[in-house]
């Protein structure tokens, strides 16, 4: 009888332990980048036009201590102490951060957006709780980083980093303090050497601006943000790229400039974008008064529209009157033949749900728990910018142009959506089954199309040789929403055009900001 148990035990254990060990860990596309080695230093970037700053000297940066002082020598010795005994973790953070400060902070921001892009779960009575910035860790956590929220977050962080870098480069050129590896030959440069003066540190400026703006945008994630900040600063010391006074001055400047953006953000009307039940009722009754069928939520229980007052948020690239003028004319009337035909077209696409259409729909869906369409365009842009070897200030300038366009696209798009309050295709015809989730806001115009049109227009200015690629991507993103069964053709065609109009403002700004391309 003993044998039975013995044999059983051996055989059953074999089933558990035989498996081979093989590594399955997945590498991200930017996990193993080469260190950033700018093709040009952009040393004159202090003359570029900032977004909010009145000029590069709005926030003063004191002259650095001389490199022959005992204090500076002590700071160089701090680097040498790190470098004398490096462990693998320390080497890994140097490698990670050397890919570029603007890039890494943009990725971290995208990560926080994806983490927080979750619609709140309903209350027992069928209503929905709203996240509170004053209590960000209570459920539902603040923020719900939906596409408009995300677009605004990307814009503020990028624009603050750009302005802070314009100021930083001004002071770099003014004080011309060399990097520690250029001051002391016994400091090893663990990253590519550069002639760019190191005071104030461009990395600390980028990180400081990020910390200050992200504290406002993701108040519940301050520990994570602060830990990344400290790691970033440590990486710069270990790499021999900055002494502590470079970093301290950069952090202070980055935070000071970012404060100006935080002040703007507190007053940009985004805080009221959720609207009130009275606002929601008025959107519906205004639509009915125009003789149209109003949008209603297809979720169960019905969820209030996503940030219906976001169209009132203050734009970056043009004034509020221009924003209203960018709103397109009305969609086809719900009762029109054209609308019937467009609804039929959507139905046909969803009935013929080819595998290729799923690929396109899911590639662009950027829905719940993702970094949203603006984040997707940041990813597309970043992967191209990596190949261009931009300086940090040019990285920031290009990301700021892109993300200001995406934020303004969100504003004009949300204004249009809630002005016309047009129903989704599957509201008009419940036989339409969608290839991805139906967004909880009105249909006209398509957000994906507006974002994509804007992004393509900016990126084709920044990287002209990729113009055809960006326009093809934008067209595919736009069409994906028809294939998915969640937008009519009019939503997409008009959205793409409105987006391009907005993107052109950013491109025009780029043409006159002094940076050139």
């Amino acid at each position, binding site marked *: 009888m003993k044998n039975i148990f013995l044999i059983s035990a*051996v055989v059953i*254990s074999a089933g*558990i332990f035989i*498996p081979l060990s093989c590594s399955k860990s*997945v590498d991200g596309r930017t996990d193993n980048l080469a260190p950033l080695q700018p093709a040009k230093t952009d040393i004159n970037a202090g003359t570029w036009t900032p977004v909010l700053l009145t000029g590069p000297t709005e926030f003063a940066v004191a002259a650095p201590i001389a490199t022959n002082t005992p204090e500076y020598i002590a700071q160089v010795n701090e680097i040498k102490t790190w470098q004398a005994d490096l462990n693998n973790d320390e080497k890994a953070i140097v490698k990670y951060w050397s890919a570029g400060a603007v890039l890494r902070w943009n990725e971290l921001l995208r990560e926080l957006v994806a983490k927080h892009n*979750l619609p709140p*779960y309903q209350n027992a009575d069928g209503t929905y709780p709203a996240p509170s910035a004053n209590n960000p860790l209570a459920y539902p956590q603040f923020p719900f980083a939906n596409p408009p929220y995300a677009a605004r977050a990307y814009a503020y962080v990028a624009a603050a980093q750009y302005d802070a870098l314009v100021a930083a480069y001004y002071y770099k050129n003014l004080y011309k303090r060399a990097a520690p590896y250029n001051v002391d030959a016994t400091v090893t440069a663990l990253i590519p050497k550069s002639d760019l003066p190191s005071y104030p540190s461009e990395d600390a400026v980028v990180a400081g601006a990020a910390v200050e703006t992200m504290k406002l945008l993701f108040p519940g994630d301050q520990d994570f943000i602060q830990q990344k900040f400290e790691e970033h600063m440590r990486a710069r010391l270990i790499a021999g790229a900055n002494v502590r006074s470079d970093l301290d001055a950069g952090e202070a400047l980055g935070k000071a400039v970012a404060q100006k953006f935080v002040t703007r953000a507190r007053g940009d009307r985004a805080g009221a974008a959720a609207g009130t039940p009275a606002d929601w009722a008025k959107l519906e009754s205004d639509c009915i008064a125009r003789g149209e069928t109003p949008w209603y939520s297809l979720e169960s229980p019905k969820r209030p529209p996503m940030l219906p007052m976001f169209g009132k948020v203050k734009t970056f690239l043009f004034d509020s009157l221009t924003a209203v003028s960018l709103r397109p004319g009305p969609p086809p009337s719900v009762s029109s033949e054209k609308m019937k035909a467009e609804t039929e077209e959507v139905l046909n696409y969803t009935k013929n749900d080819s595998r290729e259409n799923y690929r396109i729909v*899911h590639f662009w869906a950027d829905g719940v728990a993702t970094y949203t369409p603006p984040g997707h365009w940041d990813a597309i842009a970043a992967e191209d910018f990596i190949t261009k070897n931009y300086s940090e200030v040019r990285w920031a300038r290009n990301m700021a142009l892109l993300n200001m366009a995406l934020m303004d696209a969100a504003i004009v798009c949300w204004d249009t959506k809630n002005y016309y309050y047009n129903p989704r295709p599957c509201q008009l015809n419940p036989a339409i089954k*969608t290839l991805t989730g139906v967004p909880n806001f009105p249909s006209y115009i398509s957000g994906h199309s507006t974002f994509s049109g804007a992004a393509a227009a900016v990126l084709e200015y920044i990287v002209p040789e990729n113009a055809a690629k960006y326009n093809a991507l934008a067209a595919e993103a736009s069409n994906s929403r028809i294939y998915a*069964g969640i937008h009519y053709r009019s939503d997409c065609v008009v959205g793409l055009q409105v987006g391009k109009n907005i993107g052109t403002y950013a491109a025009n700004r780029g043409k006159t900001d002094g940076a050139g391309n």
Partner: protein
Amino acid sequence: MSLTQVSAQTDIDALMMSKNNFCVGPMYTYSSWKEYWEGTFKRDNANLGTVSSQMFSVMGNYGISDKLNVLFGLPYVKTKASQGTLHGQEGFQDLSLWVKWMPIEKKVGKGVLAVYGLGGVSFPVSNYVADMLPLSIGLGSTNVTFRGMVDYQLKDFFATGSASYVLRSNVDIDRTSYYTDELILSNEIEMPDAAQFNLRIGYRTNRMIAEAVVNNWTTLGGFDITKNNMPFPSNKMNATTVGVNLKYNIYAVDGLSLTGGGNYVVAGRNVGQATTVNAGIFYILNFTNKKTISKSPKTN
């Protein structure tokens, strides 16, 4: 989100085909759930209603020898949500192939002890969408399963226990990034392996088998569905089911048998609380000229 990956019928029971016998037949499975576990939080979802899947499979089992069998199973799966707007999915799912070996069969005490070793592989035979849970028809990974099994039959009663380790390959999806508990900038998902434990106890004669089954599937890793999020292929999907099966040999037609069964998820994590029923008809083709005479209730 539902673990209804039907594989060849007898990859987890103690039945063996005799040499040169080939048992083959169709099987229909219906599985549905209304409530599911979002992590450990049990909920329903009015945007899904009842999620159901229908599975039409063909399965076969061939006796290379009395002690060595090969098996296959190929299901066509169709899913649907009764509420909300999401499009149902359908298509051929994963082909599974097994080798089943019974190295030991001997009298121990008053009964007969048999020991089995099984190896299986399953892989998608169509390019179905794995990243549209809970409506995806499968998870998209290629799996290699190692299973040890022991059966003891005493008169007309038996008990079978098995343990399996399931190696699962990574899965490629259509998007270029996704969030687990961190942001991954890749279209490749790291799939955690899984373990499966199965215990079946019942009555087994040449005429029929009636058994009660407890099964546990445990994902070795993975992450929980975050609150009000959609499920993801590399979630930590665990399920314990209890069920019953019946197999009846129709003596009037030599080699014909009917099977039926059902099970219910009694505990789970990141899966639907599914009720599953199935029915099948199997026929034994005898490639020798001998009449199919069962030597033991375990052998067809």
